[in-house]
């Protein structure tokens, strides 16, 4: 038996702060969406935050600081420490397709929790990219005049609203799969608190 550290302290702390921040951003974002829906549906108010538009905007623009500052700590740590390179690379489309196929057939093993398979690497990378796109499109919506070159990159104010929505949908989808996977492999759950796992 060998106990090894698989989730460094910085990753564990930023992970749980991010859970709170993303929860605030998404649920208040749904309430904001409801004020002027892009599609012919809205989100049930029971799962939104803020009560009404002004309350939701207050949550959203307070939560953004938690989300962005925490995200910056995570990104700087992940890049500078080599955490991203060690955990998420290398990654190839072929390996991702193969592992996703295996996972769908219920054959993908995750015995060694210190090593991510290609499907996990792809999902975590996609999540990081989606979160960055979320911030960029959010800034374009918030400041389409002051950050107008960023807004132009996002298809202007109206384009940025759609990108913001689809990035939210991507994040929500990845989070759902992530939580489902944790429930399927429950021994991964305590490691996000302790950071450690015992390799047989």
């Amino acid at each position, binding site marked *: 038996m060998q106990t090894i550290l698989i989730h460094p302290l910085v990753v564990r702390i930023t992970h749980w702060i991010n859970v709170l921040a993303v929860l605030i951003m998404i649920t208040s974002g749904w309430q904001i969406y409801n004020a002027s829906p892009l599609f012919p549906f809205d989100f049930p108010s029971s799962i939104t935050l803020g009560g009404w538009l002004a309350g939701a905007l*207050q949550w959203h623009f307070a939560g953004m600081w938690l989300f962005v500052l925490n995200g910056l700590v995570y990104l700087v740590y992940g890049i500078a420490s080599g955490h991203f390179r060690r955990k998420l690379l290398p990654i190839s489309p072929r390996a991702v397709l193969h592992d996703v196929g295996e996972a769908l057939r219920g054959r993908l093993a995750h015995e060694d929790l210190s090593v991510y398979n290609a499907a996990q690497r792809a999902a975590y990378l996609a999540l990081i990219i989606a979160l960055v796109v979320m911030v960029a499109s959010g800034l374009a919506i918030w400041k*389409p*005049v*002051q950050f107008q070159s960023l807004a132009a990159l996002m298809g202007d104010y109206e384009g940025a609203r759609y990108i913001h929505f689809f990035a939210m949908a991507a994040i929500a989808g990845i989070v759902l799969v992530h939580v489902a996977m944790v429930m399927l492999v429950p021994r991964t759950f305590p490691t996000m608190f302790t950071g450690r796992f015992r390799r047989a």
Partner: protein
Amino acid sequence: MNGKFDIHRTPALANLERRLFLKRGLSLGALAMLTGCDITDQESVQRILLNMSRWNDGVQQWLFNPNRLAPEFPESRITKPFPFNAYYGEDEVREVDGASYKLELAGMIRDRKPWTLAELYALPQVSQVTRHICVEGWSAIGKWNGVRFSDFLARIGADTTAKYVGFQCADDYYGSIDMATALHPQTILALGYADETLPPKYGYPMKLRVPTKLGFKNPKHIAAIFVTNEYPGGYWEDKGYNWFSGS
């Protein structure tokens, strides 16, 4: 004291203060009735959220570049029909009598003589085709004609070192903006829409057009303008919307 502070003696402002007092009383009552089951309504949470909103006012003030222009569009991009929006329905639009209309001035302004509509029409006019972005999320492109607000403020001898410019409107709406935005070259007192006299539904006889701020920062049917260092708030801001609300 009589120069700067007789702002409090104008009828429009007395009115405004009365309303603010009433509203504060009402929201205190509303607060007392809350059961506290919604996290947003808890007093400590409310305080944090409002403090963050004040902090965001400061951040936006810092981000605001007085020389950065809002994008302008060709007339072919104008949204037709341009949406009506107010805190009341379109059937309740106020009819203002242009013949008897007088724009009142108050506060830190040298020449506070009221302005007739004819005098306002006689000022040099500019136009812009810009995007109006509503706090709700939707946006629409429109064309506004009117007087550059910085020119008007210079003409009336407004103290441009003051912090705020406030507006009192004929539809009982009220609001305020920061001086830097008031002096922005695209901030105009709009007297026309699409080269025609401003129709009632867009704020006849005059609305503020600020393409660097959200739509609710563009008050319609302006009856009085005042310059002050005391935070004047606004109709929606007093209900919880962020005050600066810059784009």
